[in-house]
């Protein structure tokens, strides 16, 4: 396939019906470090692996609070993520100013998707190089969405994006039937177990390179602090999904 003939800009289709620029943007998402989300009837948990550019540097944050009831985890170009984050925060504030209530989650994801699609249909623009996992709670229930540079968005029970995310997704496929009725603690342990599947052999999870954010119907979005992360990572050794089945 002579890709180079059709991949210069967003306004050129390939004979196979692909927009290569958009596909390349999705590659940028796959190169980002892994982040995942999973939800139960009451809570949503976001887990991400933070990258450290060098030993001298800090760890790159991957989760951002949008509003009390909504948060995102990002994979891909952090600068593009900042733009979308700012947009989402502004929309939530305006909605709150006008209606004194929380922006419905699906609606905001739809707005972000519209914005993303716009970038895929112009000669002078490039798509956003970032995928978001949007966790949120609204009167319609508990939500987890994924957005793509293509402008598509999907709702999930659990999803992982970024590098080596297939390993986490395989873990989810085996155990997601337990998530609906899981407690918050079980959900966090499932999330950390899934991330553990996706790390390299010589890496290990610790409270510095892992980020966990939690959201619930009566729980505003918060990050677990270093001590809580340490405790959960320790609990991982004795946690097995099988024990959850036996309890039920």
């Amino acid at each position: 396939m002579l890709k180079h003939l059709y991949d210069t800009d967003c306004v050129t289709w390939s004979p196979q019906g692909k927009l290569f620029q958009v596909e390349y943007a999705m590659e940028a998402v796959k190169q980002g470090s892994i982040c995942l989300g999973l939800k139960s009837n009451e809570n949503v948990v976001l887990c991400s692996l933070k990258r450290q550019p060098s030993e001298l540097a800090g760890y790159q944050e991957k989760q951002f609070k949008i509003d009390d009831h909504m948060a995102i985890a990002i994979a891909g170009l952090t600068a593009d993520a900042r733009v979308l984050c700012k947009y989402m925060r502004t929309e939530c504030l305006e909605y709150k100013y006008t209606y004194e209530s929380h922006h419905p989650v699906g609606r905001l994801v739809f707005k972000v998707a519209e914005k993303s699609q716009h970038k895929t249909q112009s000669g002078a623009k490039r798509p956003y190089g970032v995928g978001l996992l949007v966790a949120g709670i609204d009167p319609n229930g508990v939500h987890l969405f994924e957005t793509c540079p293509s402008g598509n968005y999907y709702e999930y029970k659990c999803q992982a994006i970024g590098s080596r995310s297939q390993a986490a997704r395989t873990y989810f496929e085996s155990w997601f039937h337990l998530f609906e009725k899981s407690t918050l603690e079980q959900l966090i342990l499932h999330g950390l177990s899934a991330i553990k599947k996706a790390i390299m052999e010589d890496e290990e999870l610790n409270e510095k390179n892992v980020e966990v954010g939690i959201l619930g119907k009566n729980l505003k979005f918060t990050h677990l602090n270093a001590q809580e992360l340490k405790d959960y990572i320790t609990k991982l050794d004795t946690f097995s999904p099988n024990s959850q089945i036996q309890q039920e």
Partner: protein
Amino acid sequence: MIFNPEFSAQQQHTTSPIVTGGSVIALAYKGGVVVGVDTLCSYGSMADFKNVEKIAQVSKNTIYVSSGEFSDFQQVVRELAKIDRSALQYDDGVHPSPRDYGNYLARLSYKRRCKINPLYLQNVIAGFHNGERYLGLVDIYGTYLESNFVTTGFASYFCKAIISNYWNDNCTLDQAKQVIRECFKVLFCRDCRAHDVIQLAYVDEQGAHLEQPERVETKWDFSGFKNRANEKLHTQ
């Protein structure tokens, strides 16, 4: 009138209302909220339009009434309908709650007040959502209040005593309606711009119910009127 080109260049501001609606009274009862308003639109001191249905159902579980400039009321009804319609565009099953409408109207009124071109209205939004009653008042300045009972116009002066003596927020629907009817009886006697035909509407967990206009009971067969005691003094 001679057309004055200078006037069209200036921004016109609402300085005084022209066609106005009368007082609104709304009470919460056990299980919902009931609203009453008369069916008159006055043109100054003239009782011009006597059969106006002034209760707007803006969504399945929210109703909106106001007193003041009637054309502003009609415009606000259009604005509120826009919100519900835009919800259809997103197709996600999320519809504004009564409180969302109340706050939106408060923001709209405040914005207009800041431009010194107000929506010349005292607004009442009543609704029932997620098992909770809602009753909100937004005034001409954009002040926003939620309460168990709300009165606008002259009803605020004449009717609060009746309401506090005969109503509590746990009463039945019929009791609340009766209190409102009593209030409008008094208003018809004392408020020059009031009318004796009123319309009631209530919102409960099934949604909004608008009733047909009804005539308020009035009593004119006092012996003083019948015997025309005063007239004898003047026929000489």
